[in-house]
């Protein structure tokens, strides 16, 4: 995949970049880990110098990055059109909340709840992942519009079911969660999510996922087990949506079924398509831009909800692949998959190559 070109930016940064590239590779290898640790420390101490409002915005940005990146796996990489991501988020949110509000205190672990928070999130994610199978199975037989309708129905079913279970508050919602989600926690989960998704995307499952988007029949005819790939993708995407849901529940400390309506799913869709399909960097960008934009547009009051759909319509017309469509930021590409690494490997293979190669193309002078 090509690197995106933001020419004016790269011109400003050129001297910096040159200086960086003159460093020995052994030093450069540590750039990412060191940066990540520095950011983590900043996030950890952010309550000291960022006000409560902007802390909350940062947390929403993080949650939305997780949602957008995971939905991008389905809609961008696999090319399906799922519009029910909030349904999975709801499952994660309710399960994690029930754990921290009811289950842990009842088991006498009340005082350890801040430490058990990741466990609650993981269980919420797993529960959401399990429900991801619900969408995976119809996807074997239906594609495109029909699958979109199935996922829409799924979102509505989740909402209705939650509204009708009185034990968890029904339409009134569920509360009593502690404020466990902090900037540092969200940061950690974002890093984990992006790292794991990146690894998946650059594995043969990721390439299988892309091949389903490109041509599903051809994909199964070159040995890709499309069912296995689809199950994997839906379950993984639902898992991370569930994690995001748990984080969300423990920042606003009150969830009701309406928080996970189709509107929430639409927001995530806008972030994915705005940032760019088939690009994790795009999802990071899309989620950040869209979340911050909505905050800045608060003076517009109700009218700001017009922005999302409008943006989606304009995007589909003028830039259907989004800002970073099918491109990736360099730091998100694994070292061994970067173009120059592959070219070097090719060079090595060519030099030891056997004498009997296939009859060469006629000077490549086709068409």
């Amino acid at each position, binding site marked *: 995949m090509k690197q995106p070109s933001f020419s004016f930016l790269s011109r400003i940064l050129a001297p910096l970049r040159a200086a960086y590239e003159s460093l020995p590779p052994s030093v450069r290898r540590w750039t990412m880990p060191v940066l990540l640790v520095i950011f983590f420390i900043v996030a950890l101490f952010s309550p000291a110098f960022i006000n409560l409002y902007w802390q909350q915005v940062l947390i929403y940005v993080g949650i939305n990055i997780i949602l957008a990146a995971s939905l991008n796996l389905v809609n961008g990489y696999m090319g399906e059109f799922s519009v029910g991501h909030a349904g999975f988020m709801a499952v994660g949110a309710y399960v994690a909340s029930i754990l921290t509000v009811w289950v842990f205190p009842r088991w006498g672990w009340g005082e350890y709840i801040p430490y058990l928070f990741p466990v609650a999130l993981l269980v919420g994610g797993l529960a959401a992942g399990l429900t991801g199978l619900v969408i995976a199975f119809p996807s074997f037989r239906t594609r495109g519009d029909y699958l979109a309708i199935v996922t829409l129905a799924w979102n509505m079913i989740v909402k209705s079911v939650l509204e009708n279970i009185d034990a968890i508050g029904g339409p009134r919602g569920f509360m009593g969660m502690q404020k466990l989600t902090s900037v540092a926690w969200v940061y950690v989960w974002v890093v984990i999510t992006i790292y794991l998704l990146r690894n998946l995307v650059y594995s043969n499952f990721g390439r299988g996922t892309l091949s389903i988007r490109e041509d599903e029949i051809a994909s199964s005819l070159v040995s890709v087990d499309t069912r296995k790939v689809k199950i994997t993708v839906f379950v993984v995407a639902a898992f991370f949506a569930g994690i995001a849901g748990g984080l969300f529940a423990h920042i606003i400390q009150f969830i009701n079924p309406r928080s996970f309506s189709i509107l929430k799913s639409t927001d995530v869709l806008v972030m994915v398509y705005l940032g760019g399909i088939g690009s994790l960097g795009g999802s990071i960008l899309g989620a950040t831009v869209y979340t911050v934009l909505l905050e800045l547009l608060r003076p517009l009051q109700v009218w700001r909800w017009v922005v999302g759909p409008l943006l989606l319509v304009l995007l589909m017309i003028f830039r259907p692949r989004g800002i970073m469509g099918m491109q990736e930021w360099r730091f998100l590409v694994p070292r061994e998959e970067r173009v120059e690494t592959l070219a070097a490997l090719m060079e090595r293979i060519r030099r030891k190559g056997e004498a009997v190669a296939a009859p060469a193309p006629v000077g490549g002078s086709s*068409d």
Partner: protein
Amino acid sequence: MPVLQIRGLTHYFGGLRAVHDFNLDLEPGELVGIIGPNGAGKTTVFNLITGVYRPTEGEILFNGHNLVGKRSDQIVSLGIARTFQTIRLFKNLSVLDNVRIARFARMSYGVPAAMFRLPKYVREEAQTRERALELLDLMGLSEQATWVASSLPYGLQRRLEIARALATEPRLLLLDEPAAGMNPGEIAELMDLIQWIRRRFDLTIILIEHQMRVVMGICERIKVLDFGETIAEGTPAEIQNNPRVIEAYLGEEAVA
């Protein structure tokens, strides 16, 4: 023992009989051609073998495995690969990725191994990367390994499709009109290539082709289909003089 045995293969699309009572015994290493006018059912035979359609009747045995009812990816991992009449590459992906995807069934690591970069994943990925690049080098596509597939010239796209099929490590290769849309120079080159990969990878090949030059030039045995029926079978010389074949291709008056 034959590699492939097809018995009484019949397929209906609704009321239309696309293939009727198709039989074929394929010995290891053979190169058999299937010819026939448009709509004769040639591609349908390939689709039935590779599990795209499920036959209405008949059986297909490949090295003793019954293929009827198996999914395409299972059939391919048993050792049958194919190319398509109209090129069906993964257009927006790199040349290398196109080939690597075809090694899907040959990799054994699971999803967790991939996500956490476990040693098994790292090892198998490195191996696949190397194998795929070797194959591209062998097929004369090393310069273009990191290109997007759709940016290749037409002839190289055909070549890549064959490389992708070979990456699944097939014993039997089904080529569906590989010479379609090629100029005479490219066709000559393609014929050399088919014969070369046949030796190099020890393949049995079935070739569907409209270009008589290709079929007559490299096939040992030819089957002729018309309206789903097998109307003739034999060596290139026999087929060329068969009145039913001439009739099917040129119409009745030509024979009279």
